[in-house]
């Protein structure tokens, strides 16, 4: 799956969990930049990502994810392996 497709899917997930569309998805985006993306919604997003892309994260991988770019790279790696 190419990066554009991943971002497109991520956008749907974010809108579903956060219930608004006021964000622009890019590599540097992190939780602080998006209204409602906090420790409550974070794991909801993770759960949706796992369902939509049919992948499973390891807990340690989550700790190392610092921004959206990291998340996209990791998703890409997981679906291609």
């Amino acid at each position, binding site marked *: 799956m190419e990066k554009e497709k991943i971002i497109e899917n991520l956008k749907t997930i974010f809108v579903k969990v*956060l*219930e*608004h569309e006021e964000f622009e998805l890019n590599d540097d985006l992190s939780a602080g930049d998006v*209204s*409602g993306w*906090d*420790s*409550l*919604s974070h*794991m*909801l997003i*993770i*759960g949706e990502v*796992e369902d939509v892309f049919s992948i499973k994260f390891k*807990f*340690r991988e*989550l*700790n190392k994810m610092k921004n959206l770019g990291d998340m996209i790279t990791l998703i890409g790696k997981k679906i291609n392996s």
Partner: protein
Amino acid sequence: MVFTSFNFLIFFPLVAIVYYLTPKKYRWLSLLIASYFFYINIKPVFALLTTGISLSTYIFTRLIDNTENETKKRNYMVVNIILILLPLFFFKYFNGINSGIFTLLESFNLRWPLPEIKLILPIGISYYTFMAIGYTIDVYNEEIEAEKNFGIVALFISFFPLILSGPIERANNMLAQFRESKLPNYKMVSSGLKLMLWGYFMKLVVADRVGIYVDAIFENYEFHNGTSLMIATLLYTFQVYADLGGYSLIAIGVSKILGLNVRENFRRPFFATSMSEFWRRWHMSLITWLTDYLYTPITFAVRKYKIWGIVIALMITFIISGIWHGATLSFVFWGVLQGVYLSVEALTKNNKLAFEKKYNLSRKYWYVFINIILTFILFSASELFGRGTDMSVALTIFYKIFTTSGDIFIGTSSTVIYMFVGLLLLFLKDFTDEYYPDKFLLFENKYKFIRILSYSTIIVIIFLIGVLDGGQFIYFQF
């Protein structure tokens, strides 16, 4: 020897001078010696615990780092966490378990009275246990490499400004600072002194003065009406803030003077507009610790339950936090209350955000004000159960607040006046810091004259109305 004791005022400058004069290579050692001296002066045997926890943590973190085998890594982590939790459980719940069994025996008339052994909780044990656990998990999660110098690990566990009540620090912030042992510049020392001064003000003038009034009511709650009990309940929240918040500022200030940056613990909590925001401003070092090492792993484990997984994690985290405060029914109830508050907010969060946006409410003063008051009342109500009294006492007070009323208890008028002077100053400082961070500066004013006048005024107030008989800090008991 606590921060408010006269001995500390001699001990600390001496430590700072020795630290500055020690060659860079051995500065950590001078801090380690000072820290053990500090702790041994509270009770010598307690130092055995910190040594044991340091040793165990040092050995197991090195073992984790030295193996590639994932199962072994995991086992080392688990074994160390269990080992260092044992003393905490033993000391914290020993008396509770004893009296529980005694009550059971008594109810069957089987109690055979012999002289009882009462254990005292080694002061600070919760704080350094948490720090050691955090460090172990960080090494396991590959967030930080295991420290090779045992002395640095021992210093991290026993660092005297933090050992009694936090802030609960993290290895990734402290270890490197201890290793480098950089001396502070003038700005750091001056800001450290200012933090200490304000910390002493919060503790001695606000917390202890409010404490006199609040205790007078709570300790005789049978004789007071609901109005007075309600006032005491609201004031108690300020007392805890000034007590632990003041302590934290002194700890942070002391560390700064030694050239070490320690995380903040409170950020003007009473201006929070929701409980979730409140918990990002109140006892922050504990709550981020719980978030990282308890809440997040739990939410990860139960993420397939979606939002209900979050609710489960919130409830478990805060119930554990309650039990950490003490193994009593009222503390558990305190935790349940926090869990319920936050769960309700989690479940309604998106609707609330949308609603606020639709009517542009977050910019309206009255709306913000109502939310601040509501948050404060919700938290104060929960603190009635977080005071360490019996559940029945807390419930009686709660019931009386809603069923009786009358004149507010005054007692000695000087107590009330002093209390309000302190509270007013604290409120004004927090209010301007919150809404006008660059205006009405006193300690940071650009004119030296105003700065000196402010320091002197606060010092005079501390000596005039501070409670200077060396009272204890509330959070030492946890």
